[in-house]
């Protein structure tokens, strides 16, 4: 809801205004000095409209008691200071406990999904690095999950995960991995977590694959040749040539995968519909449910701000870490 942050469009301001900053104080402005400002003005206006103002409104909402009694007239909503935050962070209370458990589920989900999606993407990209017959077919096939409309893809998984009619239990039954008379549920209870992870990986890994595949094209083939002449085995080549060569790509890729996954709303929303099992209660879904279904937008906004702070913190730590490492390199 309020999760926005500034884009770097504002950066050119300093550059553009540099010619004006000549030492003589009373010098006439050069002809056309306004042009750079005019050119960036639309960007700034829309930046304010689309990102900054909604974010500020969201932060403001988190400090007022915006419940059903006030949503028709926001200005009447009483100011509650950090009251909404206190409820969200009181882990002895029911709401705080629910938020904490949702947060932990989301952390586990993110680690598994990002790790495995990255792993699959890397494996596929490396496997398809050398030219062979039919490589284009594989590349295309691997990208299909990314091309399928998200809703259609997830709803198909929902059908496949049905306990009594789903194809997954039929396959598992045929392989004698489960008792066909008592097939497991995938969309309710604790297995819901597994189902959600599987669907999210399926949805995400082609993106990792695509990015890593593109990154691999920039690594000089000669390095591999030289390495194999020196007797380096494939794993060694991967670790010492491929991985460092993909450094810049990985830096961006991992951050994006993390943020997308941590914010994932569509997967639980489509997979579970209105009644989410506790094991599938991802945090953005949790915030949506709390604010929209119980009509408490102030509390929802407070949780959104907390989520924003957490994601910004993680991103900042990550960037500092990456910067240090690249400075050392």
């Amino acid at each position, binding site marked *: 809801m309020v999760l926005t942050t500034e884009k770097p469009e504002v950066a050119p301001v300093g550059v553009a205004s540099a010619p004006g900053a000549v030492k003589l104080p009373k010098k006439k402005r050069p002809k056309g000095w306004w042009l750079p400002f005019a050119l960036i003005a639309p960007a700034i206006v829309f930046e304010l409209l689309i990102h900054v103002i909604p974010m500020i409104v969201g932060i403001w909402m988190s400090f007022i008691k915006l419940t059903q009694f006030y949503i028709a007239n926001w200005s009447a909503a009483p100011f509650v200071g950090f009251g909404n935050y206190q409820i969200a962070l009181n882990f002895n209370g029911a709401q705080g406990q*629910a938020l904490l458990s949702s947060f932990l589920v989301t952390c586990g989900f993110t680690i598994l999904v990002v790790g495995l999606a990255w792993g699959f993407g890397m494996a596929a990209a490396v496997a398809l690095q050398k030219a062979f017959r039919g490589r284009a077919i594989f590349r295309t096939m691997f990208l299909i999950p990314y091309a399928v409309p998200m809703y259609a893809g997830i709803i198909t998984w929902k059908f496949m995960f049905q306990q009594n009619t789903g194809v997954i239990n039929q396959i598992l039954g045929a392989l004698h991995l489960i008792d066909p008379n008592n097939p497991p549920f995938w969309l309710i209870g604790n297995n819901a977590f597994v189902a959600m992870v599987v669907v999210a990986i399926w949805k995400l890994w082609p993106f990792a694959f695509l990015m890593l595949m593109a990154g691999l094209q920039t690594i000089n083939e000669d390095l591999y040749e030289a390495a194999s002449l020196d007797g380096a085995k494939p794993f060694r080549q991967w670790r010492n040539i491929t991985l460092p060569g993909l450094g810049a790509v990985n830096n961006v890729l991992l951050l994006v995968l993390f943020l997308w996954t941590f914010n994932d709303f569509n997967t639980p929303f489509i997979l579970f519909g209105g009644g989410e099992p506790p094991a599938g209660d991802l945090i953005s879904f949790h915030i949506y449910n709390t604010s929209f279904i119980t009509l408490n937008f102030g509390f929802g906004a407070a949780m959104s701000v907390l989520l924003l702070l957490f994601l910004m913190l993680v*991103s900042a730590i990550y960037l500092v870490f990456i*910067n240090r490492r690249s400075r050392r390199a």
Partner: protein
Amino acid sequence: MKKRVLGAAAIFAAAALTLAGCSGSGGSSSSTDSAGSITYWASNQGTSLQNDKDVLQPLLDKFTAQTGVKVNLEVIGWNDLQTRIQTAITSGVGPDVVNIGNTWATSFQATGAFLPFDDSAMSAIGGADKFAATALSTGGAAGQTPTSVPLYGYAYGLYYNKAMFAAAGLTPPTTWEDMVADGKKLTDPAKGVWGTSIEAGSYTENNHFAFITSAQNGGAYFDGSGNPTFTQSQNVDGIQRYIDLMQTDKIADTADAQYSTGTESISNFAKGTAAMIFNQNNAEANLTADGMDASQYGVVPIPAPASGKPVASFIAGINLSVFKNTKNQDAALKFVNFMTSPDTQSALGKPFSSIPVLKDATPTFTTDPDIAKTFSNIYNNLSQPLPTVPLEASFETEVGNSMNTLFATVATGGSVSSSDIQSALNTAQEKVAASN
């Protein structure tokens, strides 16, 4: 150096894009109506959104011919309706007239966004007297000027398969205990046949039965001043009784725990794999579509325990509300009057399978006179309104969702004791209270 700056910029841009991905749902629909037109949001009552349009459009044309007011119709599915209305209330930009689930009436009334039907507004739509008392009681909190008027009425009934009951030598149950005993006789898991089939993964239906079973036990989810009383023993016992249909009575299949669309149990009933279902009176269209004729089943009120109170349903239905900020209040009220007129009501009763909300109106929702009589009786004499308190919407969601989880526990081999229910209700109550 340059590379690093570029890399950092790229990361930042990506981060911005990603974080932005989570932003904003400022959906709004413009209501730039000319003087002679209103916008009407209808709920999905027919077999599809298109079906609703096909049913409603001829009537709207008739209204336009009578009054000169043009009606812009939008039919909205149930998944989106509540969110759309909330967005309209929050933003102040919405339709003139809207259908609401009648259980939301008090929650929306509390927002102050809807026009109160005071004496003058009420007389503009034909007077409060034209409505059946039961139906009108859902218009808002008791003692306050209602902000919605009834449009379609619904009630729960117990549908039973006549042939299966006859083959087992049974008559339709009159107590909860009878129903369970009958269910046990009719259940044969080896053949995939069950006494009943329930939508145990639907938080709305679960919530309805939390309410009905509690009312049968003489309990309540809110006290007189609107404070939640979720953890009373009557509520716990009621939920236990409902969950036990699957857990200890074993007359409902564990597969039911993931049913949530409201149609799976109907389809089991039509296929003959469930001998009884609890459903509102709009099942006929689906049953016919699934190949079951109205002569093959009967309907009786959902029975209460022998020692319980005769409550068989909540007063379900759809109400009509007018947005207070409408620029065309006269036209909006004329339209409400038209929709709740005897002619329109009887024209819509059949396609939408609704119980009439007008006094002394003849039901048109079914071809079977016995079924019509049974449902009219349930609706007018055996139904109680869901709590008419502002926290109703939160109550529906929180209690319904806890029951989803409890059913999931039973289905995946766990067991649910009354202390589990007690603690689930306690959590739900704390959440409802904390979020207020």
